């Protein structure tokens, strides 16, 4: 049971978003920009970074929710998602994404762990400043999302099929549309205490 009284039947971060719509909206907007809106990194690559960091933070809900979205973007390839979590240096992903995942892993441990060599490696593999920026911010944001979900002990389903079904919808419609599906008026209400 969650540490606070959240609406029943909404797993992980969704129960928290329904509990506090004012914070749900900016958090979903951040996810929308970082993971869903068009960018030079594919949505699949960006979701793999989110999944990898969530796995390093041992957040069951986030790594399965975003792992399923990543797999959906990768034409259902769940094996690549598993490889990235297990040992990304030997996963079937580009050398550029490996360099970015290395940066994301350093950020997960703490911002100061990112060394100039890590950034140089990413640049050598063709990463732009914006891609390096977004990688650091995705990794940092998931250090927030993961702690938010686990710090309040939210309920997490164990049936992976539920994650797959939800993933197809989020991958197609994005994070703001997903939020609007169960939180009405996010950002315009006052907390009722």
């Amino acid at each position: 049971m969650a540490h606070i009284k959240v609406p029943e039947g909404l797993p992980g971060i969704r129960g928290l978003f329904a509990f506090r719509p004012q914070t749900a909206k900016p958090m979903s907007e951040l996810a929308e920009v970082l993971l869903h809106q068009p960018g030079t990194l594919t949505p699949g690559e960006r979701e793999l970074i989110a999944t990898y960091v969530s796995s390093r933070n041992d957040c069951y809900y986030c790594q399965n929710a975003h792992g399923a979205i990543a797999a959906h973007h990768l034409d259902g390839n769940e094996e690549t998602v598993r490889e990235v979590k297990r040992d990304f240096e030997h996963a079937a992903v580009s050398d550029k994404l490996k360099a970015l995942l290395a940066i994301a892993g350093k950020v997960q441990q703490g911002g100061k762990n990112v060394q100039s060599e890590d950034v140089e490696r990413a640049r050598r593999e063709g990463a732009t400043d914006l891609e390096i920026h977004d990688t650091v911010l995705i990794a940092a944001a998931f250090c927030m999302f993961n702690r938010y979900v686990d710090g309040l002990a939210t309920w997490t389903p164990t049936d992976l099929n539920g994650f797959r079904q939800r993933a197809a919808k989020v991958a197609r419609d994005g994070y703001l549309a997903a939020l609007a599906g169960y939180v009405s008026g996010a950002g315009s209400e006052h907390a009722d205490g």
Partner: protein
Amino acid sequence: MQRGGKNVQPGDIARARQLGATDVEIHDTVLIAAAFCMYNRYVDGLATWAPSEPDAYREPAARLAREGYVESTRRSAVTASGAAT
């Protein structure tokens, strides 16, 4: 929280409740802690420049406290884009 979400124990929550904390206050405490695990990594992960003199923080702090974060960020974004052109 700062070390990881799973470190928050039911005993910690019970203590906060005994001392009068509401669910929203507990929620916001967890989210503030989590958000700063993001902001800190963002700032240090990209090795941003930070002034070393405490005085440099007083004036921006007063403005932020007065205007709030959204208005203050909007104003500095306008200034920055003005400086760039």
